[in-house]
């Protein structure tokens, strides 16, 4: 377990650091709250109602479709970097991979997953 000691030390340092900053700023800073200052910060906009609101299931669908193509990019970037070393084999592999994704894309499109209404 000796080799884990630096990890433990780092963990302790991070914990003390984070908690210390919060506690110190709380103790040291002057606090004169007004109603405007006490509202949650929403990028400069006045907050509109509660955040605990139900929203449409359509957002989940879009998010899931986004993840699929996001991961596709994650696979394609290292492939592009190593393209010359991988040669023809790598090209065929990537074509197969994209063909499989295209089938899924066509399915999602035809089934209306990309329609908002």
């Amino acid at each position, binding site marked *: 377990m000796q080799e884990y000691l630096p990890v433990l030390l780092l963990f302790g340092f991070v914990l003390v650091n984070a908690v210390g900053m919060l506690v110190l700023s709380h103790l040291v800073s002057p606090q004169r709250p007004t109603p405007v200052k006490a509202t949650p910060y929403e990028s400069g906009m006045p907050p509109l109602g509660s955040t605990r609101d139900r929203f449409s299931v359509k957002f989940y669908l879009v998010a899931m479709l986004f993840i699929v193509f996001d991961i596709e990019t994650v696979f394609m970037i290292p492939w592009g970097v190593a393209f010359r070393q991988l040669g023809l084999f790598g090209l065929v592999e990537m074509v197969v991979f994209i063909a*499989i994704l295209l089938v899924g894309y066509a399915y999602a*499109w035809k*089934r209306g997953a990309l329609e908002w209404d």
Partner: protein
Amino acid sequence: MVIDLNNTAGLLLALAPELVLGFWCLVVMIWVAWRHGSFEDQWVAGVLSLAGLVMALGTVIWLWASDARAAQLAGMMALDPYRYATAVLFLLGAILTVLLSLDYLKREGVRIPEYYLLLLFGTLGMMFMGGGSDLIVIFLGLELMSVAVYVLAGIDRRSPFCAEAALKYFLLGAFASGFFLYGIALIYGATGTTNLVLIGTQVSGFALSSNLMALLGLGLLLIGFAFKVAAVPFHMWTPDVYDGSPTPVTGYMAAAVKAAGFAALLRVLFHSFGGVVVWHEALWWLAVITMVAGNLVALAQRQLKRMLAYSSIAHAGYLLAAVTSGSSAGAAAFLFYALAYTLMTIGAFAVLAAAGRGGERGVSVDDLNGLGSRRPWLAAAMTVFMLSLLGFPGTAGFIGKWYILSAAIDANQQLLAVVLVLTSVISAGYYLPPVMAMYMRAPSSPEAHSETTVAGGARLVVALSAALLVVFGFWPNAALEAARRGSTGLTPAVVYTVEGP
């Protein structure tokens, strides 16, 4: 046939069954994308899936018959008879389920052709579980199977029980996957590899059988598997999920999903932890508790579907007893019993689907009264299923239990064998009442059972399962020989050496 895994052709050949099935998933997906408007389109999707499953089955059997093996240490997927034998089991279960669903979905008004697509994906995941010789591949297969089955459990969107089943299964299944993954991480930490054979070499070569990290990882893996195969005390989700799902899906879960969990469990234990004693004890207790609790609670059920759900828990106990023996005789007994169990449980659910309507939750034992006089063939088939589940001589269930018993006694586990016999006797208390109701009581009304029909694919499922159960009950030698050959790949012949951790 020796396959060289160093060239592309060899790799493609080694993965042929999975590639065929995976390609066919895409074909069905395209069909479903363009044609999903009517029940006829859905029926065509079912027939297409059937064709894909049969082709994959043909490929597996061809590989098995030509005795395909790898020239090198197989990295991700094993090339051994055990993989082919388990793949045959899963494909058989999936084929029976598709046949059963062709008419069922139309009758129940479920028009979601993705049903068949999900069945294909689930079966593909199972094949990766049964064949994976790397914990990562097994995990990927487990997830592919589980995600497909979560959706299948809730495929009937109008039924609140379906939604309950899907949500419960998803939440607890995802939780179990977490255990499984953490187990893999700990085992990797202890051995420095996720390859099953190399883990085995590390564990025996570096005396890791009492290493805390490796044992903790093994324990977490066992918990993950116990969830998937519904062993007591990790079975809490089973009755509600099996009860709420559409009946063909319940049959698929009870037969194929459970077999997939056991197939991967057996390979992990045999390849990686063959020399570790402690899992025998853990599984011994799991098996005993599962057999006792499953059978006792099943006695109290009045609804047929719930009764079959608890019966499937009890059968997980019998299969665990086969695994506990830790010998290749135990593995062969598992393969044979899983085959018999697939036939008898899908057959029983097929009869249940014929007898009920609207998810079949309300069918009680009394609703079968007088089926013997109105539908003699259906009643005879149901009798075969019940007797085989009970383990009555003359059925495949008896031969399967016999081989589990002999494997347990060979492994010096007499107490386990005694518990198995006693709990089987208890199970007569709930397998026989449906038979008695069918033959010894009068129909409740003149028009009773007028709607109890099996047509088309479902009739084929019932007839084929019942016939095969009787055939394997009287002439089990061919199937036993196949099971014995299927279990030979489990103990690696060559000991590979690796660098230290």
